[in-house]
């Protein structure tokens, strides 16, 4: 025997203090309870005759009966569905056009256009709506300017359902473009070349091969946009309230916050209906796009497709693209800035003569404003950090363990995507009511943070999972065979190697939680306001300037963090 085999004194490898199986059960249990658990009390509240914080009460279908008998509910449903159909149709058409135009043609500056066209996804929703309102509302700067300076008729009305759908399309079209672009990139260009060699001209190839192969992506993204459109709250609250246009979300919001006594049973029933519809839509989407074999385009090695020549239409189309970006993003951001930094915004007054920082000063001085900034930052930093750790831990149990119920965990983590923000907030409200009748836990920022974290979980998971899946399992198996127990192997190898993915997940969660507001609608207590909610409430109450200043802060922080994330970890915007 040589020196190499001389056994060192037999040492047992170090072991974690908690056995792997037990820690896996604990993580799984906590995940299920926190993420899916809160649905139970909403359903319960919707079927109970009195609010859950009052004694007594009995099981009753009364809330549902009253909901379905209310003509205003059906008005709201009609508005929401009309809005969702318009938004979906327009954004699928526009998004596909953008994806093809910016990725498959010789449009001048298509790279810059491609990147810039995705920006509306990254801009926080509320400030963008404020910017649109400042510019394109009936009394907005652009509307007034066109009316007085040009013969161009103002054909839109931002305060109507089609007007709101127009704004929503500006935000949703990039979502479609992103999904379609991924699908385009995965297409084997040999398919297009085969059509060319068979005698088809480039545009014909586009119409008969490229776009038809995109059908699953179009269907999938269309259903996502539809589901998201059904639950939007900020848009109808800001733009629809002046004309009393109610959506499902605002119907629930008003009945809860503006009725005395609040109709919490009725609202819970409405929330359960909304949840059921959105869940069905997303399940149907997974079914439909899951059956993708028919559209699979595996073939030879993918080569870069030759761009389609636009010919004489190149420059006019580039001009149109630039105009689109100015209208959708440029002017509204300018409108937001001008609202924030002028005393009055009107085409009859030179904005430079009324520049002022009073709105910003008021935001920083007013305790409610400044508190909501601090609260939002706290929730975003701590919440995103804890949520990232939770996602990482749950993901390794789901994908890197032999835990018995591991398969259920990925569905649990993706489920919040099917939960409208309003419903998430209501679910946590009732959960706190049931578990902590004193209301002390709900009065802390942790309550809001927890709801925001659960809501953003699916986003973080979908950013984290691809990196985990790409990491060879032999790496942790190797650690196990050299003597590391499961938890040690995860900690020292898998999670250590996935630090960059965790950073990406953190950045995305930070931005999402900084700008989120709808779960807080039902959860908020004095002292736990967050930026988005404060903006919403004050806008509805009629203060534009300080709200815009708050919006500017939100946009600046978001872009700083996303820019930093992009520089350091290559973070890309996701949906």
């Amino acid at each position, binding site marked *: *025997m*040589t*020196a*190499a*085999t001389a*056994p*060192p004194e037999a*040492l*047992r*490898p*170090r072991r974690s203090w908690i056995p*792997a199986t037990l820690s896996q059960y604990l993580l799984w249990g906590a995940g299920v309870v926190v993420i899916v658990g809160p649905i139970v009390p909403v359903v319960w509240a919707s079927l109970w005759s009195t609010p859950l914080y009052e004694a007594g009460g009995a099981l009753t279908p009364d809330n549902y009966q009253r909901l379905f008998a209310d003509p205003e509910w059906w008005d709201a449903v009609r508005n929401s569905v009309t809005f969702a159909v318009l938004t979906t149709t327009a954004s699928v058409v526009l998004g596909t056009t953008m994806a093809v135009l910016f990725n498959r043609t010789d449009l001048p500056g298509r790279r810059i256009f491609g990147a810039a066209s995705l920006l509306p996804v990254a801009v926080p929703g509320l400030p963008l709506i404020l910017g649109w309102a400042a510019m394109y509302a009936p009394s907005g700067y652009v509307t007034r300017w066109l009316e007085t300076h040009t013969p161009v008729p103002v054909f839109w009305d931002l305060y109507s359902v089609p007007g709101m759908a127009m704004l929503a399309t500006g935000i949703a079209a990039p979502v479609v473009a992103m999904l379609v672009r991924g699908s385009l990139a995965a297409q084997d260009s040999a398919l297009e070349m085969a059509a060319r060699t068979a005698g088809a001209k480039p545009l014909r190839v586009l119409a008969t091969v490229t776009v038809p192969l995109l059908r699953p992506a179009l269907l999938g993204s269309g259903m996502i946009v539809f589901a998201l459109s059904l639950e939007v709250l900020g848009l109808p609250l800001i733009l629809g309230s002046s004309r009393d246009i109610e959506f499902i979300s605002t119907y629930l919001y008003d009945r809860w916050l503006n009725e005395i006594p609040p109709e919490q049973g009725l609202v819970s029933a409405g929330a359960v209906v909304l949840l059921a519809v959105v869940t069905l839509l997303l399940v149907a989407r997974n079914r439909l796009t899951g059956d993708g074999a028919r559209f699979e385009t595996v073939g030879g090695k993918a080569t870069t497709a030759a761009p389609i020549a636009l010919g004489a239409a190149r420059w006019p189309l580039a001009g149109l693209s630039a105009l689109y970006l100015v209208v959708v993003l440029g002017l509204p951001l300018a409108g937001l800035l001008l609202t924030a930094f002028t005393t009055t915004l009107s085409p009859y007054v030179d904005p430079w003569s009324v520049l002022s920082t009073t709105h910003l000063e008021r935001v920083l001085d007013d305790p409610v404003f400044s508190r909501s900034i601090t609260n939002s930052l706290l929730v975003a930093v701590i919440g995103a950090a804890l949520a990232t750790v939770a996602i990482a831990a749950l993901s390794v149990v789901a994908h890197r363990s*032999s835990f018995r119920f591991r398969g259920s965990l990925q569905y649990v983590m993706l489920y919040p995507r099917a939960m409208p923000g309003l419903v998430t907030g209501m679910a946590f409200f009732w959960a706190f009511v049931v578990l902590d009748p004193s209301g002390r836990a709900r009065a802390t920022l942790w309550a809001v943070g927890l709801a925001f974290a659960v809501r953003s979980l699916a986003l973080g998971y979908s950013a984290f999972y691809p990196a985990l899946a790409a990491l*060879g399992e*032999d*790496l942790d*198996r*190797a*650690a*196990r*065979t*050299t*003597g*590391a*127990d*499961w938890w*040690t*192997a995860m900690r*020292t*190898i898998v999670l*250590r*190697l996935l630090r960059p993915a965790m950073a990406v997940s953190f950045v995305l969660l930070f931005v999402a939680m900084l700008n989120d507001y709808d779960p807080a609608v039902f959860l908020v207590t004095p002292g736990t306001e967050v930026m988005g909610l404060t903006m919403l409430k004050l806008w509805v109450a009629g203060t534009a300037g300080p709200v815009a200043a708050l919006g500017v802060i939100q946009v600046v922080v978001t872009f700083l963090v996303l820019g930093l994330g992009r520089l350091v970890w290559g973070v890309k915007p996701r949906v």
Partner: protein
Amino acid sequence: MSDDLTITGLTKAFGSTVALDHVDVHAREGELLTLLGPSGCGKSTTLWSIAGLHRPDAGRIVAGDTVLFDPEVRTDLPPEDRECGVVFQSYAVWPHMTVADNVGYPLKLRRRKGPARAARVAEVLDLVELGHLAERYPHQLSGGQQQRVALARALAHPPRLLLLDEPFSNLDAKLRERARTWLRDLQREVGITTVFVTHDQDEALSMSDRIVVMDHGVVRQVGTPEAIYETPADLFVADFIGTINLLEGEVVADDGDRAEIAVAGLPHPIRATKAAPGPLGPTATVAVRPEAVLIDPPADDAPVNLLRAPVLDRSYLGDHTRYRLRLGASTLTVQTSTRVTGAELALGLPVDRTLAYPGSPTRA
């Protein structure tokens, strides 16, 4: 000291497909035992079951006097408690650690401190001739060097068994040949019981003390490389290892360890040695290696089947020439290092190297 390894009745099914069907394997102390077979034969499943990375349905795995797996006594040690060193096909060298940290990882887990750990790491790295690269990161190493890091890491603790899962499949042909000899020498030097999985028969023949040939979850033959090549236990093994001529015919005489088989189109039955005792049945297959066939056989005492066959084609392969000849309704491949001319060759099939198997050849 290294342990021996005993596997009995190992069974594993994935859904309705049986991956392992009552597999029995025994690796002697210090031996290099190879699991050889086509892909899907269950060799990797067996290896992973030993390492604890797969849970078999039934069976028993014992290393030395430690039971690693036995559902009857409710024993299923997790991989970290099995004290095996595993080299994965992908090497699985951790990219965020230096070579020294990779090799030191199992020692760190076992709380081997500072100088003792460094000394052991240096010792193992010297063993795989990588001492000078200790501070490098894996991405700075070639594939062959990464493989040696994986081996050093597997040997560091030190383990009771070394398990190698197709370790050479990612190396190019030249490097692979050198790695074989090198690994073989190292395994002898360390003297550790080693289970080696491969689908490459050259690798198996050149490296192993003994080979276990597997197919469809069943062990077909266990033996030394020579035994496996010269006297395959059945037609599958005969066909799987190397090149072999298979001629089907009717049994006309069957006594003791010899038989005579009438192959269609041949004037005389072929006399052959029975591969296994027991009656052959009505039809049998004659198997003879291309290099066992004699050309212009000398007239001596050794019993030989004499034949004449027309040449179909010849391929010159440098150190030898391969002829394809028409033999009745079939073709016969013959390999020789001497060049012969002529449209027809006089052949001799030595009776002791011509084997008879019951049944017909089943070709996939």
